[in-house]
């Protein structure tokens, strides 16, 4: 159980910054997901915290103790961290119990105490009695749990996870989400969790950090990132949002911004400032097809394609006012290509200008 502070952390590979001036404070007991597309620097960030990489600038402190910084580099074995690897990295020549108890052996703990702790941790991850087996005899999901147990057995101050569920299939992954939440609740340990999957980040984390090209884009609770993205990158990456240009008209008197979107009037949530050029983050659920008998206040668009999607149809549309833009939305009835439709924008968030707002 520990807090983690990153201050102006930078790591360059061949001159290119993989982690670029990242500052972050993680509270004791928090579950923080680091989210971003592949190559955004999230794994490098995790490896910096673990101690496998040395920062080129900045510092890392765990519980106020500087573990990496100018003139100081604590090796991973001395940081008191636990890590779950993407490949699990179970030692194939050791039994499950051997894997889970390895760190305790390194600390010189007695045999009896190790056996008791190993069995307790295995029970915690639902693998009671699996101690004598070899990793090769286990299924993918079971190996995942062993990797988790190995990490928990160390009683680390800080748990690092590098896309630990990416090798599991979807149903198993969802079961593990529930499991990880429970383990986090029960152990109360601070977790830093790297993933490229926004659904996973939302399901698991108390707070999410979005990273792009090594730079921190936004940090905050999942709801905040979803509803009020700090910039275009977060809006597009997170929550399957589209960023569309707007013509601002001015505050509407009810705390919202009146604007035109492809010529149609809209009322947007906003925080008082606008980016250049002004734009709004619009989610798929904010787009509604107008009934043909009442086109109302929507903008005109042409159907590009219509695909059956089980409960309804998925439409791809091009607004007449911006034929280069493609919008996706769901419809309960089918359309033909080239059909004319009208689309109303029921909600949206005007992207703020300037620096990313503080976490809210």
């Amino acid at each position: 159980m520990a807090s983690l502070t990153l201050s102006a952390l930078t790591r360059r590979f061949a001159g290119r910054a993989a982690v670029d001036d990242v500052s972050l404070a993680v509270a004791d007991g928090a579950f923080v997901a680091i989210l971003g597309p592949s190559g955004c620097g999230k794994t490098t960030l995790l490896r910096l915290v673990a101690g496998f990489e040395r920062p080129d600038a900045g510092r890392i402190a765990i519980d106020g103790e500087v573990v990496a910084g100018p003139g100081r580099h604590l090796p991973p074995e001395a940081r008191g961290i636990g890590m779950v690897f993407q490949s699990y990295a179970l030692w194939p020549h050791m039994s499950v119990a051997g894997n889970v108890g390895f760190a305790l052996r390194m600390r010189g703990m007695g045999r009896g105490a190790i056996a008791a702790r190993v069995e307790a941790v295995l029970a915690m991850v639902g693998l009671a009695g699996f101690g004598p087996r070899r990793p090769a005899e286990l299924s993918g999901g079971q190996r995942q749990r062993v990797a988790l147990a190995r990490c928990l057995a160390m009683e680390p101050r800080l748990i690092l996870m590098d896309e630990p569920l990416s090798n599991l299939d979807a149903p198993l992954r969802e079961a593990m989400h529930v499991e990880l939440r429970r383990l986090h609740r029960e152990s109360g340990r601070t977790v830093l969790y790297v993933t490229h999957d926004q659904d996973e980040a939302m399901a698991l984390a108390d707070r999410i950090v979005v990273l792009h090209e090594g730079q921190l884009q936004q940090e905050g609770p999942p709801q905040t990132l979803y509803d009020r993205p700090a910039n275009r990158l977060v809006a597009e990456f997170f929550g399957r949002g589209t960023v569309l240009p707007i013509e601002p008209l001015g505050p509407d008197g009810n705390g919202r911004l009146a604007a035109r979107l492809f010529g149609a009037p809209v009322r947007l949530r906003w925080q008082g400032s606008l980016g250049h050029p002004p734009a709004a983050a619009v989610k798929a659920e904010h787009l509604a097809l107008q009934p043909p008998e009442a086109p109302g206040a929507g903008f005109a668009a042409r159907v590009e394609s219509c695909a059956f999607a089980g409960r309804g149809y998925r439409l791809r549309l091009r607004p007449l006012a911006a034929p280069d833009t493609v919008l996706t939305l769901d419809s309960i009835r089918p359309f033909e290509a080239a059909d004319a439709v009208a689309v109303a924008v029921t909600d949206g968030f005007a992207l703020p200008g300037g620096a990313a707002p503080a976490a809210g």
Partner: protein
Amino acid sequence: MLALLAVYVGAVCLLPMARLFWMGLAPGGGAPDLGLLADQLAQPRVRTALGNTLEAGALATLLSVALGAGMAFLVALSDLRGRAVLVFMLILPMLIPAQITALAWLEFLGPSSPVLRPLGLAPPMGSRNPLYSREGIVLLLGVEHSTIVFLAVRAALRSVPDDLLEAARVGGVRPLAATARIVLPLTLPAIGAGAALAFVSAVGNFGIPAFLGIPGRYPMMTTLIFQRLSGFGPGALNEVAALALILAALAGLGLVAQTLAQRLHRFELSGGRPVRGFALGPWRLPVEAAVWAVVLLVSVLPLVALVGGSVSRAVGVPLGLGTVTLDHYARVLASPATTRAFVNSTLLAGAAAAICAGVAVVMAYFVARRRTPLARALNLTIDAPYALPGTVLAIAIILVYLRPLPLVGIGLYGTIWIILVAYLARFLALALRPTVAAMAGVEAAMEEAAQVAGARPLRRLTAVLLPQVAPAAMAGGLLVFMGAFNELTVSILLWSTGNETLGVLVFNLYDLGATTRAAAVSVLTVLATLAIAGALTLLARRLPPGVLPWQA
């Protein structure tokens, strides 16, 4: 640790090779002086040996390519039955050392052949063995090194995805045309590299030219060096060093050619099942018959003749139920010289295997895990003593260890230890390759996980990495043992009385005309070799792919 490793590799591999080049290129000890080399090249005997080496090497390479590549294509691209057995039989010549191959073929094709004589096909009694000739040397060198080409081409064929062929078949291309237009171009670099390696092995071979060429008056570079050194002793060392350098240059040309051929191998061949081959249809039976006839001739019958020779009463006595005798085995086993050679070779091979495997683990750690530049440089230098002819290495070792060692003042020359040093240099590459492959196969996260768990570097090596590379290191050690146990080329130049190896013993017995006893010793060593090969096969499941050539 790395420093110790560097000193070891320097003393065993680097220093001898450097000294040889220095002696050959600057014999005066100062400025480069090519006079010695030029003198040697001007001698008619050297010119003859060099010419013969080139001639026999080139012709043997052609034979190796025809046999090795032909068989590889048939095995990989057709539906022959019993391919696993076939592959083992085709690789058998590789497991049999050259001097025993020579002995076996001499028995097989000689006037008293236990195989040909009952069939009335043997040359008339009292006639000269037809193998004592250029053609004989080319035939045996070609057969012996066809395995190298076979393995190289087979590996390349296995990397050709089947869908490339399926795409051609769907497009209406017939099997033969698909083979010629698609498979052949893709495997050409491998054929070239295999041919280059076969050439290097042929020009560096000692056993075959020694057994066939010395009586057949067809001197080659390896036999010339041997005769010069045993005729004049270490006094002729300068000259011999120059000769060794010429041989090294010859082999070096082949190695450069091999590297160039491998550079050509830039095709992206990824994914998909490897080629399954075509149905031979009505041709299957005739093709099978022909293939097995070749295998029988090349791999089986010479060994049968060797066994036959070892149980026949005396040279020339026809083999029958009444004349079969185990007397030679009894005499061989009772002779102190044989026992001594068995003990020497077992100890030398055992020590070389254990030391090489141990060094390989540490070195593999630095090469594959830490990726230290020094370790990678060392990794390259240790290839030289393995790739270059054994004769060259032996001369290089003599040059360095002829004089007493500094500090301790003990000389290794004339003791068994100089043979051990040479084996350590020669065979380290054999142990290192599988160990590096295994070490590289251990995912980096395995070690990182141990680091997170609080294990320090030495502990990570012993608790996490060593258990995972141990099977490969052990297999490497066994390969070293197999190579060293039957070794002749190096030990023939380094042995002294009392320190004979098995290879030297067989050579000396043959030299004295005790062919039947030489055959008996050979049969025993072949059995030992096959037993080790069997042990390795049992280990195969736990090894990285490609460690065992006969399972590749």
